[in-house]
């Protein structure tokens, strides 16, 4: 990786503990910072800058410094102001090759939209849900976390914005001395109050019961059966087969579902599984 003049900007937001409600590091942003710090440690010429928009006097911001960051730049904005414009101006001024952010914030709207707005404004390519990043010259090889525990790699050219997923390496623990020593640089920033926040109704989150589907037909007994899945057998039943024959039946069924691939019998009953997937090509 050509280190000299390689600029990284990490966007850090303030998290909120889900139970106590106390301010803390956003765990996803802390992972993004961890990736940035590791890139910097691997190549000393890298210029790593961290940006936060919000209240600069918040003590929890020092937790990021305790993770190994020397300086954090804070754009001084009230809590109900939209940070997109101010952050956009600050990031564009730095002309980064790589922007790192968590997948979503914690403690406000939490929509995960801000990195996309920045990437659109900067003209960066954007890769979501990143767990590992390897920069090689002008391109990067990125590992993404997919649902169901799967991973895939992607090649993409710099400049680049990535959002970091929960599955990325856990951040370093907070060193108290580094948290005290690190500097917080305050920058004045202009912003507008967010009109959405004024138009909202807020109420405490209440966990709802499991949603029940609307049924068009069937009696109460049918619905109950369906809920527990104990509908009458529509499946095949093999009574006391030879073990080899039973194994063949199971393997055929698994390959028909598409769960596994069997070499001798490429039989696929499910029509859906042959159609192209928009997610990835199988290796």
């Amino acid at each position, binding site marked *: 990786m050509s280190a000299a003049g390689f600029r990284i900007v990490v966007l850090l937001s303030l998290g909120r503990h889900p139970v106590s409600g106390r301010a803390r590091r956003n765990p996803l942003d802390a992972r993004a910072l961890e990736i940035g710090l590791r890139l910097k440690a691997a190549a000393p010429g890298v210029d790593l800058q961290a940006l936060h928009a919000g209240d600069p006097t918040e003590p929890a911001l020092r937790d990021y410094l305790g993770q190994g960051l020397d300086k954090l730049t804070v754009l001084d904005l009230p809590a109900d102001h939209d940070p997109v414009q101010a952050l956009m101006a600050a990031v564009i001024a730095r002309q980064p090759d790589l922007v790192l952010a968590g997948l979503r914030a*914690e*403690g*406000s709207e939490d*929509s995960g*939209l801000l990195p*996309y*707005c920045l*990437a659109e404004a900067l003209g960066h*390519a954007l890769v*979501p*849900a990143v767990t590992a990043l390897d920069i090689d010259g002008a391109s990067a090889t990125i*590992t993404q*976390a997919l649902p169901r*525990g*799967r*991973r*895939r*790699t992607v*090649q993409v050219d710099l400049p680049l914005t990535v959002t970091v*997923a929960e599955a990325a390496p856990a951040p370093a623990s907070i060193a108290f001395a580094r948290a005290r020593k690190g500097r917080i640089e305050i920058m004045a920033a202009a912003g507008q109050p967010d009109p959405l926040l004024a138009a*909202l*109704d*807020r109420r405490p*989150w209440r966990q*709802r019961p499991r*949603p*029940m589907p*609307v*049924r068009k*037909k069937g009696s109460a007994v049918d619905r109950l059966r369906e*809920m*527990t*899945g*104990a509908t009458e*057998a529509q*499946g*095949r*039943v*093999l009574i*006391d087969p030879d*073990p*080899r024959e*039973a*194994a063949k*039946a*199971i393997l055929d069924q698994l390959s028909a*579902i598409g*769960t*596994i691939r069997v*070499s*001798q019998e490429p039989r696929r009953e499910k*029509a*859906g*599984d042959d159609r192209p*997937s*928009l*997610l990835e*090509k*199988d*290796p």
Partner: protein
Amino acid sequence: MSRPRRDPRTERAARLLPGGTRPRLTLKAAPLDHFRRRDPRELRLRARVPGTARPRFDWTRDVQALASPAAAAVPVASFVPGPIRIEEPAFWVLAVLDQTAGGLDETDRRLLSVARRFAGSTGGVVALCNPDPELATAGADRVVRWPEAAMEPVALETRMAAASVLIQALQPRHVLLSDDPVAGGDMARRLAARMGERLAADIASLTAANDSQPARVGRKAAGGREEWLQVAPLLMTVAADAFAVDEQDLREARMIEPPAIDVVVPRLRDFRLLPVDPEHLPLDETDFIVSAGNGVTDFAAFADVAAALGATRAGSRVVCDAGHLPREKQVGASGTVVTARCYLAFGIAGAPQHLQGITGVRHVIAVNTDLHAEMVKRADLSIIADAQRVMPALAQLARERME
């Protein structure tokens, strides 16, 4: 007014067939005036087409005969309705499907179901997707296929261009996408950034529109401590666990022309799936589970078959209590509720608590010695045999034949 009195003697005399030594009675007696019950034998005789050797029945013939009081209760051949057609809907709701598995999966059905709730009876649902025969039963009124250039997995930008051109042309009231951060959620945010729209991310509740007010949505915000309620905006992603998949009426799913787009050179390239060790996946994330119950005694063979098939091991409560598997491998009401696509159960009878844990599983295969076990009723394929004999055979065959 009293009922006319029946005289059994005259009725019997009317049914007596002439000739013969023994009295023979016909069953084809004319119904009495007051006798209003449906007589299937009579109806069958009337419907019989005369002159054929094999009995043929024409149930539409001889309407006059059927109009007799006895036939009044005959059911008319039930009218099978066609699909619901909406020609000019009051508004459109666009659902952009992921189809990550190729066909329609639970996520896509949920998206269409939520879109239907937004559309109500006056709106129409448009699905932007690969055409699938199941779209009509999933609630789609119209189907727009992805343009050819957008079919490549890396063509994110082209897909986004196709979606935004379609939004321009169709002017839908709402656009719904899934919350998958690398599929629908990614596309939703790209669209929001490109169009300068705000996104209602991961909506968890919905109040449908009525005459006096527009649809409202609620979502988890402020780090999961607050619910934010707002008027439903254009772009929304749907939280996976917040909505069930409703049963839908048959819809038209009429194909409409895909939008003409310019191909955008993809910036991401070379997507490649990495192999993962299924044994280290959490149970609620994995796609294929091999599970052991009280009927399994040979846990070495069980581990072997799981490794051979590339599946994640799990167990019932009994097995975890006995210490054969760690507690985080327990499936059921007191363990993990799994959503795997396939569940292969060895020696599990299917206690209600265990069946609750596999409600979200699509395909179940059971190996059990008891033909009448609940698990056998739940399974698509049941092998009534001892698990200890089937497991080694399956492991061996899998090693021989799997790619």
